[in-house]
């Protein structure tokens, strides 16, 4: 029963204020009232290595896009602690359903540079068979759902996936990443409401990085961020400092416990900053100041974790230099390899639309092959796949 009142007292939600959970300060010290989570040395180093590898991959591939070697790119830069800290708190067999800026999660789970590059270049070894734009990764063996461009569609899917996990009873959950812009979509509301009503083991992880392309958070929502929305669904919620890997790790670890043990969905809002442009098609200087970016550069999550690791004597200046150098070299070598790999076979145009190729599609494919045979120079990738052109001509066509 709701409580009766005899005065017309309107409420706005300003009565509640959701604090930000922090563990590590900017100098890499544990706050006096905070407790360091139980994070063993090897795991901490694994997290840091994934953060560094993600940063280096992003920087190199954005440069490759600028050189015209890649059609498109998006960086995770500034948000590595949010993405990788959360992933580290999961079981490796928990499903991750991400938006598109979460390559760090794959990095943590062991996706190789080769696997990243094959997708970015859409070559014959890409699991997605070269069909999707760059950074739309997926990995079945690493329980990472293939990315799609439409925003927020993965959020109700995560609730459904988690419902299936609950019925299967194997103790797994789903974590879905999304940005604060995507949280304005109707699918966000649908997902939180359904997850709460049906008590599914899902973690909704919002990366609130201040911008959705050029739209600042103040034009995205009027309330205190995304976290208070959980109240409307009677869902557990926590806000964390998204640049503090220890806070993100600990919050996600506890959320996972609630999700898996009690089938309670949880919302986590990680406050962070998108240090890079939205994508290779965006120039942030048109809508935000260098000064603002500079403030956040000082809060770099990688720098903060490194200071903490060094204080534990778990990391050193020399290791940093060596690791950076070897990662850069590996990224470059892998890129050169991936660029040279041939395009997917021509018949990948029509496979996987359905489980079996339909007669109608087969007819269209046969017509295409006949057409390419008439004009092989106009379709170098197709001609190559049909064996009508030599390797040299193929490379010309690639450029």
């Amino acid at each position: 029963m709701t409580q009766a009142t005899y005065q017309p007292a309107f409420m706005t939600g300003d009565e509640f204020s959701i604090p930000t959970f922090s563990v590590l300060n900017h100098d890499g010290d544990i706050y006096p009232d905070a407790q360091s989570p139980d994070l063993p040395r090897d795991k901490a180093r694994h997290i840091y290595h994934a953060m560094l590898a993600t940063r280096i991959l992003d920087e190199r591939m954005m440069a490759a896009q600028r050189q015209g070697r890649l059609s498109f790119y998006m960086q995770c830069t500034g948000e590595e602690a949010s993405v990788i800290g959360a992933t580290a708190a999961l079981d490796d067999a928990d499903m991750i359903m991400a938006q598109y800026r979460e390559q760090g999660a794959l990095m943590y789970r062991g996706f190789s540079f080769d696997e990243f590059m094959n997708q970015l270049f859409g070559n014959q070894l890409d699991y997605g068979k070269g069909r999707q734009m760059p950074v739309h990764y997926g990995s079945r063996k690493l329980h990472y759902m293939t990315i799609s461009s439409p925003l927020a569609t993965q959020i109700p899917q995560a609730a459904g996936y988690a419902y299936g996990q609950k019925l299967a009873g194997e103790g797994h959950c789903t974590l879905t990443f999304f940005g604060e812009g995507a949280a304005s979509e109707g699918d966000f509301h649908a997902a939180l409401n359904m997850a709460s009503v049906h008590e599914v083991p899902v973690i909704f992880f919002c990366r609130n990085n201040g911008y959705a392309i050029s739209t600042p958070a103040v034009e995205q929502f009027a309330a205190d961020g995304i976290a208070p929305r959980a109240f409307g669904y009677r869902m557990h919620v926590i806000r964390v400092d998204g640049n503090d890997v220890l806070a993100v790790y600990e919050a996600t670890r506890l959320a996972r416990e609630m999700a898996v043990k009690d089938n309670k969905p949880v919302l986590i809002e990680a406050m962070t900053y998108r240090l890079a442009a939205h994508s290779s098609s965006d120039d942030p200087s048109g809508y935000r100041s260098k000064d603002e970016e500079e403030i956040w550069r000082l809060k770099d999550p990688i720098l903060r974790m490194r200071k903490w690791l060094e204080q534990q004597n778990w990391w050193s200046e020399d290791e940093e230099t060596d690791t950076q150098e070897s990662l850069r070299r590996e990224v470059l070598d892998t890129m050169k390899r991936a660029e040279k790999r041939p395009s997917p076979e021509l018949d990948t145009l029509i496979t996987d639309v359905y489980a079996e190729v339909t007669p109608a599609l087969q007819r269209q494919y046969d017509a295409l092959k006949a057409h390419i045979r008439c004009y092989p120079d106009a379709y170098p990738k197709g001609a190559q796949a049909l064996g009508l052109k030599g390797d040299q001509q193929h490379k010309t066509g690639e450029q």
Partner: protein
Amino acid sequence: MPTMNMLQAINNALDIAMAEDDKVLCFGEDVGVFGGVFRATSHLQEKYGKARCFNTPLVEQGIIGFANGLAAQGSVPVAEIQFADYIFPAFDQIVNETAKYRYRSGDLFNVGGLTIRTPYGGGIHGGLYHSQSPEAYFTHTPGLKVVVPRDPYQAKGLLLAAIRDPDPVIFFEPKRLYRASVGEVPEEDYQLPIGEAEIIKQGSDITVVGWGAQMEVIGKAVELAEEAGIACEVIDLRSLLPWDVETVADSVFKTGRLVVTHEAPLTGGFAGEITAAIQERCFLYLESPIARVTGMDTPFPLALEKEYFPDHLKIFAAIQHSVNF
């Protein structure tokens, strides 16, 4: 063989599918203890428990998003959208997600287990939002299968096929016939093929093609035509995507004439696709222009439903016009 109406046949198909496979789940608005606003899911919750047959909040994009996730996980969701008129909030989940899941992931993931059931069509004084036939929006989407049964026997066999099909299927149920169409339906498990049309009646003068509830209307028109001495070949397409162009073309090779009819508006309707394809295949055999008898290019009206409707007289007139061309 027992006699069932279409709802009983659908309910029976769901019952068989759920009994056979624990992974089959039925959900949507009011499908739980109430058994659905049309009673298609009657007694399923009672029999299989709340975890496998349940109500969802009132949110179509959520229902299909949730269903996509379940199917990707390996479950076999049968999601209900209460009226086809209300499927549009889920359009993005269906068109951008359901249809593209397997292709975009290179077959790493798929939602092939998914079936979306939804009542469609006019003739029940439903006005704008309880009458629509939105099939053509979906036939324009590679990756989906679109199936429409015409009677209880077809409904059971095609729904069982849809649930077990390795691809996602939208199953449009002609709600005007839910209780009106009654027939013998085997109690046992059987399936009818998806992607295959059925020649219901042989004829030599003209081919008449339709699907779903329109087959009953075609039946009446064909009776009038037969009385006028015109032998019609009647084809139920049953499956619109993929559709059986061979069966229709073979028929038109024989008759030289074609009438296609559907309730949905003319412009952009699926009859346009059939017309174009048959014109390409049968150009030298056609003895008259292919006729389309459809709803008008208006929203579906309430008071003038009878005038709007592609009824048997309009189909009969088109048959006569074609034969006399």
